[in-house]
């Protein structure tokens, strides 16, 4: 796992670094420590990582702005902060976990477990997805998302009004962040369950689902049965 940590207090950074090494062991491919988000960004541009450990109270910087920039990126964000009153807000923006200070090694291990797990849903708290657009970051309400289509290292959010927005995270990472109401219907699709109108099976084990707006999306052969059970409640 490739990890970056952004923490301006040396003792805390040292502690995070020590725990990362202890928890991830050989699984830690790379660890980079930075004292500011800007400092880290330059490095991250050249060195993609899986997860960033971020302190929301970096000296004099707007925590929310950092948060938005971080969650809009391709990596998962784990907040390590003393400001637990902002935890809910952080989850609404789509962080994977919020580790309150002071933290233990076990708590950090728990956070890393979410990154490493196959589809570790962080819960249903995510209300917004941050997308980069024309050099700035915009928030897209999760309620507006009909389905998400994987596009390599990116994902495409298809919204109820027909707009499409690109997100830097992979489909897998978004699946970990989005609420339970989203179904992985295909290796390339995450679909809002209450947007599904019908499930169709065609000859030759070809399955597809029809959304209420008339859009038809393919359904993975291996996922069809489970999806049908969920939709019919059987």
């Amino acid at each position: 796992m490739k990890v970056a940590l952004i923490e301006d207090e040396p003792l805390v950074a040292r502690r995070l670094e020590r725990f990362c090494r202890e928890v991830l062991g050989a699984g830690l491919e790379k660890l980079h420590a930075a004292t500011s988000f800007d400092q880290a960004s330059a490095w991250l541009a050249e060195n993609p990582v899986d997860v960033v450990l971020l302190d929301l109270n970096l000296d004099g910087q707007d925590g929310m702005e950092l948060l938005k920039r971080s969650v809009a990126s391709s990596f998962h964000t784990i907040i390590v902060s003393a400001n637990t009153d902002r935890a809910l807000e952080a989850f609404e923006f789509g962080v994977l976990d919020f580790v309150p200070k002071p933290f233990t090694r076990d708590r950090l291990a728990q956070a890393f477990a979410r990154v490493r797990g196959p589809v570790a849903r962080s819960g249903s708290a995510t209300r917004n997805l941050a997308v980069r657009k024309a050099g700035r970051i915009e928030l897209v309400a999760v309620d507006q998302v009909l389905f998400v289509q994987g596009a390599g290292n990116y994902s495409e959010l298809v919204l109820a009004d027909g707009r499409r927005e690109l997100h830097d995270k992979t489909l897998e990472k978004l699946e970990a962040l989005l609420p339970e109401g989203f179904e992985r219907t295909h290796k390339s699709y995450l679909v809002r369950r209450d947007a599904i109108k019908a499930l169709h099976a065609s000859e030759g084990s070809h399955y597809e689902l029809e959304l209420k707006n008339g859009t038809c999306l393919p359904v993975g052969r291996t996922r069809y049965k489970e999806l049908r059970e969920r939709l019919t409640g059987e």
Partner: protein
Amino acid sequence: MMRARCLSFLALLGAGALPAAAGDAPAEAIEPRVEFRFKLGDDPRWSARDWDDSDWPVIGTTDGRPRPRLEVLPARAGVFWMRYRVERSTLPGYHPGVASYLWPRDEPGAPINSIFLPGTLSYELYWDGRLIGRAGVVGNSRETEIPGPLDNTMLIPEELLGPGPHVVAMRASNYHYNFPADRVWVNLTMGNYTSRLKYEARRPIIPMVGASCSLLVAVICASLFWFVDRRQELVICGLLGFMTALFFTLIAWRWLHQDPYPWLYYRYGAMLGTMAVMGYLMVWLLARQFAIPHRAMWLLGAVVVVVVVWLAGPSFQQTRIVWLARAMLAYALLPLAWAAWQRRAGVWPALAGVLIGLGSVQQAEDMRTILAPTFFLFFGALVVLLLGTLGWQIQADRRQAREAKLTAARMEIELLKKNLQPHFLLNTLTAVSEVIEQDPKGAVNFIDDLSDEFRSLAQMSGERLVPLQRELELCRTHLKVIARRTGRRLDLQAIGAEESALVPPALFLTLIENGLVYQQADDGAAFRLTARTAADGMNFSFLSPGRLRPLAGRPPGGTGLRYVKARLEESFPGRWTLTQGEVAQGWETIIRWQSGPRGATA
């Protein structure tokens, strides 16, 4: 209008000091001509109706004027006589001035059967040779003369009221006339006896109402002072109310007590003195009420005004009282104008009161009627307005005090929150956790420093002001904790700081916290506090070293700055300033406060 008809005769025997009966001026010229003749000497025959007085000098005539020009005659010169002839058909009309709006008129056809004679003399009055009344005992020396009362209404017997002309003769002396002037005057009017008595009986009502209201103001001020607020302004306002009541009482006294005529001089003296004290108290009250700077200078100016008017004012004593009222009211306008310019709370009612008073004095063209009781009711209005302003200020101050209490409680909580501020506390605990695991010995020192800081904050939390020394200790302990956490070398230099000076708690600690958040300083840079004790307060310059962090900037109203301002307002309400700005070495915060009285500007 009191329908009494009268013959008004002002035998002006000097620039003396007898007040006119308010509004006793004739409304029209007297026709035919009435001549007033005077003779120094004494002869009982001069009272006779048919005595030939054609060789007596004429000292005044009605001659087409309401107030005849009169000859000058000496005071304290001996027994003298005055004679004149009058016909009922030629009696002039009569109006009683301001009182006509307040008192009912005479019944139509009421008989003209009395002579009203206010005068600073003892006399006998004869009607067609018959003695109809006397005031005191006329004498040919100070020892033999017994002073008569000031105001007298003589009833003319019914049998003497036949068709005229009638001869009125007055035998008089004035050895007890104690005004410095060498002339006196008397005012003879005729009218209905019953109406005149009623009128005279009613005249003290208005000044007594004024006296009662002013006394009530004094009592209210005393009660407020005793039970509500021990402020000096209430004492001054109470004294002003009391002196105003005394002034009204002195006006009313003339009709309440039949003073011998020499008392008039002392009564006017008392009124003049009372007016001087009222004027001084008014200026003092306004200066305190509106926190006028250089108060001693203003009060000295008031004394100068009193002395100048006293010494250089008109010789008529009643006129001098009015001049004094004018001068003091005009003088009071100066500090009030300054207070209005400074937008002092409650200044407008006070200004209105003084202007009303001044306007009413300026309206008083006739100096003889200036002491009419209605006129001085304006002083009562002024006192009531001043009290109203004071009451409003007390209410505002009490509201402010309540808010200050709430602020103090809030500030205490704010300070305690600094103990428990999550970002500081939890980051520090995280750092402590790391040190404990990696360097147990260092962790003990870390915890000691942290304990020192928390202990200091806890001790300060309930205080409004703490010695600067304690504040500096707190700041340095905090910097030690931060230095342990961050590994940076941090220091605080204090220059010119008088360590016993009192400052709001955690004031500079908050500026340090802000500096750490918003400034990017080189390792080893020091915060710098420069203190200077001014004559009226303290000046501080606080430098947070380093450059502004590029992304953050300095928010204009951050939590820390709000705390600092709230603390300053709590301890120095309205008397502090805080300015901030970037300088070459970092970010400078300049704080000034005055230790002066409430309401002064910073």
